[in-house]
């Protein structure tokens, strides 16, 4: 990937709460020979605003996003949800702003934003990233990765090549965990009911670890599991892929 | 009539306002066809039977006997005026009332089209099929379908039908899944459907 300028979009939640996930992406990509930049002007993808209906408020955030990542050939993010936001929602916000320059900038940047597993499999063309993770793991495909981005089985391909890892099927894997951004608090009871069912399915697998490509969903699932003293850890896909012997 | 005109004009006006600036022309993508069936008639028989209808294949020469055999002894039978097969003892419908029809146990009719992929029989209520009510009120429907009437799928059937006529598409006996989504055959329409497929 010589000459390709790659930026890490760490996402606001990883920046503030899960820095280990961001560090794992840096470690992993460096191991694969990709030097990533962290443009310090980045903040958030604006999805919390867009999905709650605050489009005007999202405009300056999208502008910040576009400015921060302009000039990069690829933007990698350890979040299906944030990648989906950049690819599918920024255009809505840009149109709302009435700023033709922003519309153009968004349409140019959007296709260059990749979720981590997409970047590894499609752009770098690797499925064996040389990882070692001696644990029993179950995989939750998050909704935005699955249905908004269509990452398909890319995360599975990557996990299949991790040495020492035993992957067990999650029952009803494709059902939403109930996080849903502000849904988790606006409709807390329903969100918790969904999360409780997801946690039950995770426990049924007997896995030590539940892995996903989105820390927001894992915060929710992990929050329920922790409250239940289930003893199952939540780990981001990037951290498993970065782990070595 | 003026109120109607007002409502009509207002609704059409709202629609035109709503569609202001929307491009009218829209190319409808063609609906895909199923891959050719190896044996359309056998497929039809299989799919009809899937609905728990009784399907029997017979020759034209055997038809009258097979019709008679499908009717329970002593059954009161109604037939349309143009039925092409003899049903001894049957009443020919001449505009029986719903209450009168309720006194019949069975009806024998022909069909217009059979659809293999969905296991559907289409009636257009022509002379061999009769008014819609006669195939509805009696509890047993014996339907004669000729093999050459069977087409592969829904898009093959529609162009054969005359939209000006009423149609009844029948896929198995009457059924409901309203109780815990458990399928139960037989609610208001005929509880038993016998299809005689004539070669």
């Amino acid at each position, binding site marked *: 990937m010589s000459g390709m300028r790659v930026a890490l979009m*760490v996402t*606001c939640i990883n*920046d*503030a*709460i899960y*820095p280990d996930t*961001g560090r794992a992406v840096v470690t992993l990509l460096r191991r694969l020979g990709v030097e990533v930049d*962290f443009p310090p002007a980045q*903040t*958030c993808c604006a999805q919390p*605003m867009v*999905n*709650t209906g*605050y*489009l005007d408020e999202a405009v300056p955030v999208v*502008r*910040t996003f576009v400015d921060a990542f302009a000039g990069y050939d690829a933007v990698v993010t350890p979040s299906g949800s944030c990648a989906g936001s950049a690819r599918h*929602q920024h255009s*809505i916000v840009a149109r709302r702003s009435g700023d033709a320059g922003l519309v153009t900038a968004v349409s140019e940047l959007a296709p260059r934003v990749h979720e981590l597993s997409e970047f590894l499999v499609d752009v770098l063309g690797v499925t064996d990233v040389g990882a070692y993770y001696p644990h029993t793991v179950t995989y939750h495909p998050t909704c*935005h990765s699955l*249905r*908004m981005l269509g990452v398909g089985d890319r995360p599975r391909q990557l996990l299949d090549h991790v040495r020492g890892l035993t992957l067990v099927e999650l029952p009803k894997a494709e*059902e939403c965990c109930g996080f*849903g951004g502000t849904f988790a608090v606006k*409709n*807390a009871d*329903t969100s*918790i009911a969904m*999360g409780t069912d997801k946690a039950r399915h995770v426990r049924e697998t007997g896995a030590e670890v539940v892995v996903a490509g989105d820390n927001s969903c894992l*915060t929710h699932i992990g*929050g329920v599991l922790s*409250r239940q003293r289930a003893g199952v850890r939540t780990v981001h896909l990037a951290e498993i892929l970065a782990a070595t012997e | 009539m003026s109120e109607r005109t007002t*409502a009509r004009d207002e*609704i059409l006006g709202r629609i035109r*306002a*709503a*569609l202001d600036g*929307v491009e009218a022309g829209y190319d*409808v993508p063609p*609906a*895909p066809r199923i891959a050719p069936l190896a044996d359309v008639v056998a497929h039809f028989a299989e799919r009809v039977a899937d609905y728990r209808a009784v399907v029997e294949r017979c020759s034209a020469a055997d038809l009258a006997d097979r019709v008679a055999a499908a009717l329970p002894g002593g059954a009161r039978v109604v037939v349309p005026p143009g039925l092409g097969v003899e049903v001894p003892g049957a009443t020919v419908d001449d505009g029986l009332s719903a209450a009168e029809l309720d006194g019949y146990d069975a009806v024998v009719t022909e069909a217009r089209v059979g*659809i293999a992929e969905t*296991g559907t029989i289409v009636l257009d209520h022509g002379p061999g099929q009769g008014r*819609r009510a006669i195939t*509805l009120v009696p509890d047993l429907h014996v339907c004669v379908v000729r093999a050459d009437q069977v087409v592969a799928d*829904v*898009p093959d059937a529609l162009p054969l039908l005359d*939209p*000006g006529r*009423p149609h009844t*598409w029948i*896929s198995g006996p009457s*059924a*409901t899944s309203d*109780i*815990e989504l458990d399928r139960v055959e*037989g*609610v*208001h*329409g005929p509880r038993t459907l016998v299809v005689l497929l004539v070669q």
Partner: protein
Amino acid sequence: MSGTFVGMPKFPVAARAALGDAQLRHNLAHATATIRAKRQRLVDEVNANCDWEALRLAGAGVKESALRSLDEHLVRLEETLTANGATVHWARDAAEANAIVATVARRHGVDEVVKVKSMVTQEIGLNEALAAEGIAAWETDLAELIVQLGDDLPSHILVPAIHRNRAEIREIFLAEMGRAGRPAPAGLTDEPRVLAAAARAHLREKFLRAKVAVSGANFAVAETGTLVVVESEGNGRMCLTLPEVLVSVVGIEKVVSTWDQLDPMLRLLPRSSTGERMNPYTSTWSGVTPGDGPQEVHVVLLDNGRTNALADEVGRQALRCIRCSACLNVCPVYERVGGHAYGSVYPGPIGAILNPLLKGVGQDKQTDSLPYASSLCGACFEVCPVRIDIPSVLVDLRAQVVDAHRGGVPSAEALAFKGAAVALSDARKLGLGERLAGPGLRLARRAGVIPGLSRWASARDLPPGPRESFRAWWKRTDGGRDE
């Protein structure tokens, strides 16, 4: 008569009550799992010898093209229906439609009508309106009968009594059938077959004596003046065939252009809806057929908010809906809270967009809460046979709800998002905030509940806060190079 949805609480409140009903959740989980599996088997079957996605694209196209020149299609439909001997009426709203039906019934001097299950007549509250005129409207679909006899509300588009199990249905039949006509037989068990037979016997006398029937329509073909009703039980055929007079209330979005366009619709609908290759009965009729069926045929073309939806650039696609209910059956929110929480005859994902589109946002809190009744998981869009992008419409409607409330006193939420917009537009301000995030989370975890987080923390622990943000780590270690 059935109850009414008027005065329903906001979705989260209604959902909380529903979530507490263990029987309801059990009934729903069982029913939706069953129907999801049936649908999926058939989609797989189609993909074995055809292409489900291409079929969906064709289905969406048929409806979309009809909507884009809806005025022309309706004018054409009126012409063809009239030429076929039907009388066409136009109704701007529920009251006008109800009045038209009542007038027809009164003209024939009847005190009862039989009804085919129809979403639109529920939407306009026809039964209640007729009752006010002294006319009983008998529901003849089994599930509708269960709802009507139980003085209940529908909770699903296709199976309105999905929230009831067999034991509850038996109780309702035993207690109520006698009051509405022929009583349930003494030895009634809770076997579905036996319950269905009781409904058959109860309704047959009503079918045989009814002079006037009321229906909706699944499709209205402009080119030929044909209405189509798709059903299972035969109650539809009874209503469409035996009475002398038939009144069909048809939403203006039901129109398709040509007869041949009933394909792909008739391939998509039953597979998506009941999970069958074809539903047991589909009836088509073009006005009056001399000597066969009703000799007086009325068609009421209803707006009731549909033109509002049509004017909504993003939401317009909701008018493609063919009411198959596949989106309800896959929705994880619907599966847990059921249909009543949506406060409308249109529940589930489609209800969450259709109700605000028909009624408009910014007027009542219940309607405004519906676009938020979704985790935006996208399962609805994936199954919708006419490819309605429900998540995108939900997000757009959320923006409309927020916009409708701009200008007044801002809510705590609005202030929070305004604050966030400022912080997230400038990485330096964000970095400052983040330095507080770690200690804040650690404090929150130790202190238990802190204000604003209580709804999160009622059943979910907070994650441990990191000592250092990613941004700070990157800066301190030069992206890990100095570690």
